[in-house]
């Protein structure tokens, strides 16, 4: 096994981890504030990708807008996912706050409907986005050699999302409110904060991140039906391993799972899925709250 090979596989794991991080961040954010396990998170990923593509495709074909098509697609994907998330929170989840199991069941019901409606509206054909020329094609990386530039860009995006979220949560007023809400919602409401509004904002933000991940993921590799299951599963595993509601934990979980998936496929192809679950079971046995999770109070 050459050094080049080892580095390539590790870099593959890193770029995959970046995508998992972007998607799982939204899941973790929603759970952290509202204790809502959003089983429709994978569906929001799919909504982002499909709606984004529906906007992107005609623009890409036209000559005038082709260069901006990808960015507009991203905005549309984020917007669509955030809107669906907002509707979910306001219409269904908000008024059953605190009934965690019922919320999980509601989101399962919604995810079934969303997946079926996407199939009905957009059909089941696989598709992919083409990144702008600047991010398209290979680039020369030391030792590794030629590597798709977009996948490196994914890592930068994930870091940007992570830093952005950290700044949002730690340096802004909204962040202070959100963190206070994690600790004690009732007290926060008593302080005069409109908690349902904050909850709706956070839900839209988390859902928007899933939609963003959808467009990015569909640019990196072709998109097809069934990815909602995969990304819901990965979001679950990443936040279980990393710890609920912690950005650092989500990053660590995404790194572990992304690397394990890529290295698992190289070392023992048939059992790579098992490796992911061995990691999950081990972490749960030793740290039931996840690697960086806080103990529930």
């Amino acid at each position, binding site marked *: 096994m050459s050094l080049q090979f080892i580095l390539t596989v590790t870099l593959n794991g890193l770029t995959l981890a970046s995508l998992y991080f972007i998607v799982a961040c939204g899941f973790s954010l929603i759970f952290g504030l509202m*204790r809502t*396990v959003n089983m429709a998170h994978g569906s929001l990923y799919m909504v982002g990708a499909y709606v984004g593509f529906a906007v992107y495709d005609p623009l890409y074909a036209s000559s005038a807008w082709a260069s901006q098509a990808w960015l507009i697609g991203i905005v549309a994907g984020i917007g669509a996912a955030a809107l669906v998330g907002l509707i979910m929170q306001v219409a*269904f989840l908000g008024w059953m706050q605190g009934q*965690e*199991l*019922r919320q*999980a*069941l*509601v989101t*399962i*019901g*919604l995810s*079934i*409907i969303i*997946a*079926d*409606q996407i199939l*009905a509206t957009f059909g089941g054909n696989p598709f992919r986005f083409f990144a702008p020329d600047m991010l398209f094609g290979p680039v020369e990386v030391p030792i590794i050699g030629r590597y798709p530039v977009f996948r490196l860009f994914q890592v930068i995006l994930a870091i940007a999302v992570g830093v952005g979220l950290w700044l949002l949560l730690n340096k802004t007023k909204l962040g202070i409110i959100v963190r206070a809400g994690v600790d004690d919602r009732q007290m926060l409401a008593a302080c005069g904060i409109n908690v349902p509004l904050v909850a709706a904002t956070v839900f839209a933000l988390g859902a928007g991140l899933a939609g963003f991940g959808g467009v990015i993921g569909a640019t990196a590799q072709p998109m097809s039906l069934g990815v909602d*299951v995969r990304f819901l*599963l990965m979001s*679950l*595993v990443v936040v*279980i391993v990393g710890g609920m509601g912690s950005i650092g934990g989500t990053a660590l979980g995404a790194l572990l799972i992304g690397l394990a998936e890529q290295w698992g496929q190289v070392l023992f*192809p*048939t*059992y*790579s*899925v*098992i490796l*992911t*679950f061995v990691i*999950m*079971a081990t972490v*749960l*046995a030793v740290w*039931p709250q996840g690697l960086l999770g806080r103990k529930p109070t």
Partner: protein
Amino acid sequence: MIVMSTRRWVLTGIGIAFLMTLPLLLPNFWLVNIFGRALVYGIVALSLTFLAHYGGFVSLAQTMIAGVAGYSVAMMAPTAIPLGDVALPYALAIPLAVLAASFAGAVVGLIAVNTREIYLLMITLALAVGFSLFAQSNITWFNGYEGIRNVVGPEIFGRPFRTPLVFYYTALIVAVLLYLLVLYVVRTPFGLVLQAIRDSDRRTAAIGFHVGLHRVASFALAGFIAGWGGVLITFYNIGITPSSIGLWATVGVLIMAVIGGLGHPLGAFIGALIFAMMDTFASSIIGHDRFNTLIGLVFLAIVLLSPDGVWGMGGRLVAALGWRRRNKTAVSGDTR
């Protein structure tokens, strides 16, 4: 003994007698594809209802555990295509498969022993999907995407298992026995401790009970129940594929249990019957392509309007009409 009021015993007896006479009343299609199917899937849903109602564990791993039994029996079945390394007679393969499912149940219980409520739901879901993905990618044992075909089941009294009457009565007898088993277990000291854990695990631990051991044991028992369901489902489908134990199958069993009502073991079978009828007849209402939207909407409506399902709806209806006897709550005891 199973503690029930005389009235309940009479009602249970009438219900079983009615189900026993169904073959006289219904064509074979209804017998096998609606009622037989509802019984075998209802068994898996029953294991979920048992865990959810008496232990407070909403485990999504029950379909996966049924799948463990299904794959075990398929790997050992003498008629399977592809034939496994150890072909055993069904009389041996079926008990071994159920044993494997009980063991798998205990393992799931062990992994999730420190988690509760929503965490338990997430972890069991992850395990379930992981197992299905593994079965899909493994060729040596699970034959990958195609799964294992032609698991026809044993001959009973010289008749093939697929004969409608044989299948229906076997499913009915197994379902009734497991249903009575659940009603019995929840009255034993073990079952009572389980319900105490549900209500407050810390107090139960303070009295001196080993909470973790009881939890693992309840998962093993649920695995035993789901295992029988998995074996019968495999015979019903004449084989097993990874998609039959995947996310949608898992969610399907959850839908059955929730639609029927998690408040009583009977709810599992009611829900499975409703699910089977919708699955069969939805095509004539909105076309089979949009079945998922229909079932999703029904599920959503039930969760939003009546979280305790059809069973709870029925209970409220009875109470509203004033049929309920005044001392009833004192007798039933399993109110939640």
